[in-house]
């Protein structure tokens, strides 16, 4: 037996989306932004929009037939545009972070080089590090 489809389900579950039992906030958001076609028992497909208002999901009946098809296509295009905009924004932010890191990289490299050189010179001059501070090793001072 194949997967249950709206047509084969009992009338109570005939809707493709169950708006009243979304278990998680994320799913609730998805449900709230979902748009759907519903097939009614008396026949015909109806375009329904859902949106969230004051924490509740409100379903808005749009219509049926060619008019509803046009509205659905418009909604789909709007959603795709919004998605593209969000991706563009994420991309811009990622580039911004890369740019900041690229600006910092040479200065960090310079810092590391300076630290190694300072340490090498200090150790060579007879200092040793103790608890993060350099001290002259006792009896190890050497003349030039």
């Amino acid at each position, binding site marked *: 037996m194949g997967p249950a489809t709206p047509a084969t389900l009992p009338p109570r579950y005939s809707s493709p989306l169950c708006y009243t039992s979304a278990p998680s906030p994320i799913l609730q958001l998805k449900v709230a932004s979902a748009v759907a076609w519903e097939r009614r028992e008396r026949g015909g497909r109806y375009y329904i929009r859902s949106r969230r208002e004051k924490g509740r999901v409100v379903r808005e009946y749009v219509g049926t037939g060619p008019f509803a098809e046009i509205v659905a296509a418009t909604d789909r295009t709007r959603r795709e545009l919004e998605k593209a905009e969000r991706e563009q924004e994420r991309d811009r932010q990622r580039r911004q972070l890369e740019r*900041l890191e*690229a600006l910092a990289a040479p200065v960090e490299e310079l810092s590391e080089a300076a630290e190694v050189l300072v340490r090498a*010179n200090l150790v060579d001059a007879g200092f040793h590090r103790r608890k993060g501070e350099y001290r002259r090793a006792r009896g190890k001072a050497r003349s030039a």
Partner: protein
Amino acid sequence: MPEEKPGVLELSEDAKDRLTELRTVSEKAEAGDRNARKRLRQLVRSSSPEIIAAASDVAGSAAWMLIKTISAGEPLMQEALQERMHQMRAEIGGENPTPLEILLTERVVAGWLLVEVLEGLVSAQYQRDVTAHRVPPGHIIQESRILESVTRRYMAAVRELARVRKLQASGPASFHFARRVYSRGG
């Protein structure tokens, strides 16, 4: 922000190899290895001038890139920043600095400029049109981490320069290592 990519701003592979060797030998010498101490003395004399020169080049290129970023192509601003950095170098480096002090001064100046640039870029994020998309908290946190790391490095650079000067001042005359070691280079 200008989209121009930064040029080559890295130490050469040779300089990196020498730094790695210096680090390793320093650790061994600090641990009491006599042979390592001898080797360190040779390395400090042979490698340090070249590494200081290479690192100073990186510092110069980095500073120029930062100046170009913050001035956004305005020649007057570029001139003003270059002059400001020149003054800072003179002020921090003091009279007759050793090559190591010059390098540490370059590090302080470049670090200061980097902090200024990043603070400017990050704060610009919050001055955008209110109708624009809100910057997500994750992005703000990442930017703040970069800025925090850069600020920490800058403060460490200031401390390091002060420490080297203090040690030079308190140590015997022979401790003016950098001047002694690199004086041959002029």
